[in-house]
């Protein structure tokens, strides 16, 4: 009896969800917008810059009369909420933001509805940093790690591009270069790419086997040989603050993080940014609609607005993000488009986690 009840409930839930998804896809875009306005509200789960994003969403609210609510939460916490809501007929999440590299660890078709109801636009991005989210997610936030530097001490021609040139900089300017190994991904992106180039290890292989990790040893030795000449900072923000303060001349940073701090007047506006030729990790964040979203039409209209060329241009100007719509204007970015060819893909877990643990133990804790 209980088994029958459970099966019946599961079937009802599944068919209702599929019906909701199918309903949206079969509607014309005008009908979706009409339904969205009737729904009148949506909840966007996004874990960062929530105050700024609430402000940015005001434009959408004014244009469509749909209220956007952004609750506070971490990415991990939001993911746990998404999974916890999965079995409910109607969940609490309408639009779900996720770090792009996390799409590899989520069963997209089981969690999200296809975004086929949106008007066609070939300029959008659903394949980023080697990960194709298909029709289930679109990138709305492009971010890139690189090196922030103080132009009063170092000029464009002298910027280090390779591990060898970085080592030369460390030696000629001791304790003027810093990077974080935790509390943010810019420092890890830096040391991972140095390890990749110096060791020649295969970063496309996600294996955390002993042999694969042992291949990193030349890179580990490289850092230990120069340990006295560079500084390890506490976080992404600490690195930038210490450049702004004049203590450091160079440090890894996120492009959007630096631009945001500069726009808000929290760090010096003259700090510059570049991607070294050896490469540093780039990526982004995407948005999807959960299968049991309570306001799926409003969510679709919101995503369409979020990834439009106009909004992406505003994001580029306000937040310093790399636009995730090819028709957007990226002239406000900290770096020229040509430099983005040095963007590399972050290595996958479990190799990345094992490499981070190895670096912490064999470099950071040996200082």
């Amino acid at each position: 009896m209980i088994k029958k009840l459970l099966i019946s409930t599961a079937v009802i839930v599944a068919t209702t969800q599929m019906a909701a998804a199918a309903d949206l896809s079969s509607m014309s875009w005008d009908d979706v917008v009409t339904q969205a306005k009737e729904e009148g509200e949506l909840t966007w789960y996004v874990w960062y810059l929530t105050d700024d994003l609430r402000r940015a969403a005001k434009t959408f609210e004014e244009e469509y009369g749909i209220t956007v609510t952004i609750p506070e939460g971490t990415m991990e916490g939001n993911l746990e909420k998404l999974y916890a809501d999965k079995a409910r007929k109607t969940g609490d999440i309408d639009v779900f933001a996720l770090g792009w590299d996390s799409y590899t660890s989520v069963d997209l078709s089981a969690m999200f509805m296809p975004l086929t109801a949106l008007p066609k636009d070939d300029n959008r991005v659903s394949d980023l940093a080697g990960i194709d989210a298909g029709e289930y997610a679109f990138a709305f936030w492009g971010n890139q790690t690189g090196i922030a530097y103080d132009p009063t001490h170092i000029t464009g021609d002298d910027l280090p591009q390779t591990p060898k040139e970085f080592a030369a900089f460390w030696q000629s300017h001791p304790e003027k270069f810093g990077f974080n190994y935790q509390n943010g991904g810019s420092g890890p992106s830096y040391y991972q790419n140095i390890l990749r180039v110096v060791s020649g290890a295969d970063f496309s292989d996600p294996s955390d086997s002993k042999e694969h990790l042992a291949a990193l040893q030349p890179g580990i030795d490289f850092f230990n040989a120069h340990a006295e000449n560079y500084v390890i900072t506490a976080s992404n923000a600490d690195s930038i603050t210490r450049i702004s303060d004049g203590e450091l001349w160079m440090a890894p940073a996120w492009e959007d993080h630096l631009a945001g701090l500069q726009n808000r007047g929290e760090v010096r506006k003259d700090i510059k940014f570049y991607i070294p030729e050896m490469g540093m990790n780039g990526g982004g964040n995407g948005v999807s609609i959960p299968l049991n979203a309570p306001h799926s039409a409003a969510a679709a209209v919101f995503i369409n607005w979020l990834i439009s060329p106009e909004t992406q241009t505003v994001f580029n100007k306000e937040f310093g993000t790399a636009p995730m719509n090819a028709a957007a204007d990226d002239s406000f970015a900290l770096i020229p488009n040509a430099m983005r060819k040095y963007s590399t893909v972050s290595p996958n877990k479990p190799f990345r986690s094992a490499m981070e643990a190895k670096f912490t133990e064999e470099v950071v804790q040996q200082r």
Partner: protein
Amino acid sequence: MTARQWITVTLLLMPGLGLIVWLIGTVVYIAFAQSFGLYNINGESALTTAYWADLLGNNIYLRSVRYSTYIGVMSAIFSVVLAYPLAIWLRKPFTGSMTIGSILKAPLLVHGLVAAFLFVNVISYHGILNQFMQWIGIWDGPHRLQNDNNAIAVLILQTWKNMPFALLLLTGALQGISDDVLDAARDLGAGSWARFRKIIAPLTVSGMQAAIVIIFIGAVSDFAFQVIAGPINRQSLAQLMVGYKGRGDWNSAAVVGATMIIVALFGSAILAGLSKIVMRGRLK
């Protein structure tokens, strides 16, 4: 007692004690169970000692245990040592003693995160301390004081935050000592040190033990001070646990969490015993 009386007592205790035991018990049980592979959030649950074996052979974990124990012990000692003379001074009320006591207890009202950020600002490369030292001519240039390898910044913050708590407990214990007892000792020729050693210390040992144990437990599990002002080449147990959790390795995080419980439990028992021996000259 009869069975009926036992039931009555149990029912009377249930709302208070039962809730505490249930809340703490479930959390501790799940932490230990996860450390042995049960209650897995990701994947199948299976009883295993592999997570403990992995971490016991891991240098990062062992250094974290040593580091957190060091922070816990030193913070407790510094806080109590600084609080004693202040508590003795404030034992008998005098004009302004209430104001001084309130100012000394002010750190209890300031959140640790706020204190840590303010402190980092003070000691930063171009912060007030560096500028002052250069202005008076002691230092030629700015010194890098942030995230020092010996965790002096963390110990300063822990002592600043916890000393008022020790002061609160010790002042209460000291005010419980009758003037007659101290006057009698003075009449018998006991000097300041002898009065402290033979009267004040033994009579305030319970308050001191409570302070030392509570401060130790809090400092062993510190996260906020460590992340902001702590050394880069060491990780506290709480920091390590959050790191594992962030990587989705809940079982290793549970091992570190269980370790924190064990260190807090045994460490506080050892500290309480040692402090009694030091203050009374004997264990009982």
